[in-house]
């Protein structure tokens, strides 16, 4: 911008001489925002550039290794989000651009924060499912599952086998639907508009099954402490078999449409590269971690439920780039379908909720017959069931990585502290490193490949 012309937008272009403080004073987020270099302490600068990685297994990354330090004053700080078509919700990323090259970036979150952890302390364990299921809204059943598993661990009870198998069936289907949605949005982010609809089209099949089973398409409140809310609907095998039958063919279509498509490969290969050391150090989990070559899947490495009895492969990448993450998700759908086929075969008969009067309300007709049943019914629905004192952490593998539930009970029917470790929340930390040095278009591909769900991030 030439000297004689006043800058069009003061905050865009800043120089070292510009009063940097005045630039950030305009918005309300204060120091949560990306700061101009003149203001930023060196430590934070390093953090933003992802340079401070004291790696547990390796050497220390030196800031000198990173070559994007440009002291040129022709940089521009730009906001991507919270209202941007490809930030997947209300994620906001501030980026410092040199031309179109991303020098630094900082994710700013909290726009969807609704205090669900606090709300969780106000709801009983019976009601709790309705709360946690809203966190990671693309994988609601996983939220319910981890909450139920944590509660059951505190109760020290074992749920009936059928309940566990139903949980596995539904969560694997949920993994399929979540990944399908990701395939759709990823296609959209890269400009392949048809992929968007195709992904949604297949996901709809899964959601239809959910609707049939739980009565809702998302936020099911179906997996509960003590089992599942209801038995599988009549004729569920046919529905699941149809999903198993149709989706693989559609996945092959995706292969034709995207995987082998040279433009798509150009757009994703070598974009947003993360090394295994960086991924581990940043606590990334799920497809991001696996794309770097670390074969870590809780289903196999710390089996919960009956995953140790099933045959499936953990899909691992080798380059840690956006294409690897795409391929991992695509193949994880296939693996999930493989798991689902085994579950359908092995689904046992029997109870699907724990037959413990304190936890599960009595069968309805017993209310008429027995005073005791009526009292239990009333107690469960008014004050809930009491959970013995203690604290526990349970983690399960969601489509996005590890979701953990840290649950503290003080012996009352409400959780004393409910903390959800959400995969997207932690995974977002790897964004600045992956974006560094890429173009704006790459930034979009990177955000997409992280697959953040802001409901889970902000809780």
């Amino acid at each position: 911008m030439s000297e004689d012309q006043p800058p069009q937008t003061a905050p865009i272009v800043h120089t070292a001489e510009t009063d940097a403080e005045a630039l950030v004073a305009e918005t309300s987020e204060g120091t949560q925002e990306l700061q101009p270099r003149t203001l930023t302490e060196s430590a934070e600068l390093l953090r933003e550039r992802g340079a401070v990685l004291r790696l547990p297994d390796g050497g220390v990354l030196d800031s000198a290794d990173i070559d994007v330090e440009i002291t040129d004053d022709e940089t521009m700080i730009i906001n991507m989000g919270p209202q941007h078509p490809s930030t997947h919700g209300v994620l906001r990323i501030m980026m410092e651009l040199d031309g179109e090259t991303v020098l630094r970036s900082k994710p700013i979150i909290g726009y969807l924060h609704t205090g669900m952890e606090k709300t969780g302390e106000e709801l009983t364990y019976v009601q709790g499912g309705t709360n946690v299921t809203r966190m990671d809204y693309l994988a609601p059943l996983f939220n319910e599952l981890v909450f139920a598993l944590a509660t059951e661990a505190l109760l020290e009870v074992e749920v009936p086998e059928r309940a566990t198998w139903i949980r596995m069936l539904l969560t694997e289907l949920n993994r399929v639907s979540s990944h399908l949605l990701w395939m759709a949005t990823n296609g959209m982010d890269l400009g392949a508009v048809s992929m968007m609809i195709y992904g949604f089209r297949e996901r709809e099949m899964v959601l239809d099954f959910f609707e049939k089973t739980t009565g809702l398409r998302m936020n099911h409140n179906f997996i509960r402490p003590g089992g599942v809310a209801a038995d599988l609907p009549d004729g569920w095998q046919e529905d699941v078999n149809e999903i198993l039958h149709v989706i693989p063919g559609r996945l092959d279509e995706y292969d034709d449409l995207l995987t082998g498509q040279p433009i798509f490969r150009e757009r994703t290969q070598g974009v947003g590269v993360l090394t295994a050391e960086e991924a581990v150090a940043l606590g990334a989990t799920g497809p991001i971690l696996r794309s770097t070559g670390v074969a870590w899947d809780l289903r196999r490495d710390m089996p919960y439920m009956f995953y140790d009895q099933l045959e499936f492969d953990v899909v691992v990448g080798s380059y840690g780039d956006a294409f690897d993450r795409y391929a991992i998700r695509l193949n994880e759908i296939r693996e999930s379908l493989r798991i689902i086929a085994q579950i359908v075969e092995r689904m046992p008969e029997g109870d699907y909720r724990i037959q413990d009067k304190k936890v599960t309300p009595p069968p309805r007709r017993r209310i008429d017959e027995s005073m005791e049943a009526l009292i239990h019914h009333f107690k469960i629905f008014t004050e809930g069931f009491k959970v013995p004192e203690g604290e526990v952490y349970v983690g399960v593998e969601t489509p996005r990585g590890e979701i953990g539930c840290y649950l503290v009970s003080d012996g009352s029917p409400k959780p004393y502290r409910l903390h959800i470790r959400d995969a997207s929340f932690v995974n977002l930390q790897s964004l600045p490193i992956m974006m560094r040095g890429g173009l704006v278009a790459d930034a979009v591909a990177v955000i997409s490949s992280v697959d953040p769900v802001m409901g889970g991030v902000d809780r």
Partner: protein
Amino acid sequence: MFLASAGDPLFVDGINFAVALAVIIKVVLAFAFLLVSVLMMIWFERKIISDMQNRVGPDRAGPWGILQSLADGTKLFFKEDLLPDRADKRIFRLAPYLSAVPAFLSFAIVPIGGTITFGHYTTELQVADPPIGILFLLAMSAVAVYGVMLAGWSSGSKYPLLGSVRASAQMVSYEAALGLAVAAVVLYTGDLSTRAIVTGQEGLLRHILPSWNVFRLGFVPFFVFLIASTAELNRPPFDLVEAEQELVGGFHTEYSSIRFALFFLAEFMNTITMSAIVVTLFLGGPDGPGFHFLRWLWPILWFLGKTLVLLFVQVWLRGTLPRLRYDQLMDLGWKVLIPGSLVWLLILGGMLISFKWGLIVLGISVLFGAALIRARSLGAQRVGEVGS
């Protein structure tokens, strides 16, 4: 006299009132035709895309939603017109017209049929047939760049700015490839007038193929022109200038109401015009077998049919391909299209002198190409070694 040319028999007797009237009628008709076809094109695109995506698509306004674009246009017309605070107001207002007007003007040189006779006047079905028609086309598409560029720049906002930077680079690069592809046509035809180019393509090539430029020139200029014009039009997969997922609309982010509608109009009008020009330059224009009844109609139908096929291809591209990245687009333009069409132009030139010269030029180009590819792979290896 710019509009008058030796080509159009309308002007043989000089210009009188009837001739002027005929010209005005032609202009108005072309304008109306173009506007209607833009509306149809938007509807057509949306319908085809929705078919490709198993959707219903627009189906509310009129039968099969055919009036959807009209409804959208009417709505846009009555929307609030926002002018950003930091915009350069005059240029901000000017830009949409810079975009839309050349789109109209380019269409003027497209021959959409043969000639018709009314009274003792005979005229070509073409608004104007200037002797330098092709240059006029290149000039107009160059002016249209300014519309997009200035729109982004004058918005005083960051995303449009990025969009306009992309626009200037992209359009300038692809203008070169576009020009080289056109040069091949001009070289072969020996005339800059579009009418002459069209008439030059009549007849059969070796008694099988129609003697269209796409066959005569060996496909390369055709595909280069097709790709370059798609890029020039900012259509997917080259729509980086508006790149909704990255730049939230790019240069027209800050535009609303009728000004936005003008950009929209210009984009689709350019799509139609460019397809028509591809038909003119490479697919023989209105050339095609005719029948004895309604003689004047067949060329028009042929022309429309060919254009429609090209438009379908454009839509198909949009429905299938992901968007290129900025640097990949530049790579494609500078490293593939421009050298390719340049070499092809040389070979064509050689062939025009004699077959022997053509072979010589071909041989030299192959040698150079091989050397270049070898050098590039060596370079890539070297980079890999240094990097590791």
